[in-house]
């Protein structure tokens, strides 16, 4: 992936149970300092997604790395950025708190 160029990536999610599940996902970027350069244009996260029993779906993420990344001396040794998603089951009335340290 070249900084500044838009890129597409796919994740796959499966509901292995026999009941529909409504899930919501959040993401993490490592290394931590690279996260500020990671820009999502469109993804499947932050909104509830319904998966039917045994359903497997492709989850696209359309993103780009901010070109400033190439100018940041702290990023000089970074050649691998890992984006991961965690799916949680959505509970009615529960507002998913954004992770972070206070």
């Amino acid at each position: 992936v070249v900084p500044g160029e838009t890129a597409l990536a796919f994740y796959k999610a499966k509901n292995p149970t026999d009941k529909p599940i409504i899930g919501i996902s959040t993401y993490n970027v490592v290394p931590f300092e690279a996260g500020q350069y990671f820009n999502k244009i469109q993804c499947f996260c932050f909104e509830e997604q319904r998966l039917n029993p045994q359903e497997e779906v492709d989850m696209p993420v359309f993103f780009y790395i901010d070109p400033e990344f190439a100018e940041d001396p702290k990023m000089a040794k970074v050649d691998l950025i890992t984006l991961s998603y965690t799916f949680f089951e959505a509970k009615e009335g529960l507002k998913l708190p954004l992770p972070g340290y206070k």
Partner: protein
Amino acid sequence: MSTAMNFSNKSFTPRPPDKGAFPLDHFGAVARPSLCVAGECSAFKERFMECLRHSGYESAACRQSAKAYLECRMDRRVAPGQRPGCRQLMANEPLEKLGFKDLINEKSEEKPEKS
């Protein structure tokens, strides 16, 4: 969530995507299920993944395929044998705004395609 045991007070704050969420491309998500087939754009996705495998996972080499997939999601492109009209799974965005400006210019130099 992983715990970062570093000495700084910085925390990773996830940000919502610029243009919102992709609705899932599955049968249950469309308003007129009788006209639609589950996983409508999966053919384009397969083509994109095939391209990535062949190129050694060079994202830049597969931008045409990525563009085709997104056009499918925006209900602009129909694979052979499919019916249009039920795949508006992503808001229509001009391709220049999605970082495909150079690919559009290339396309306009060829013969115009039927849409």
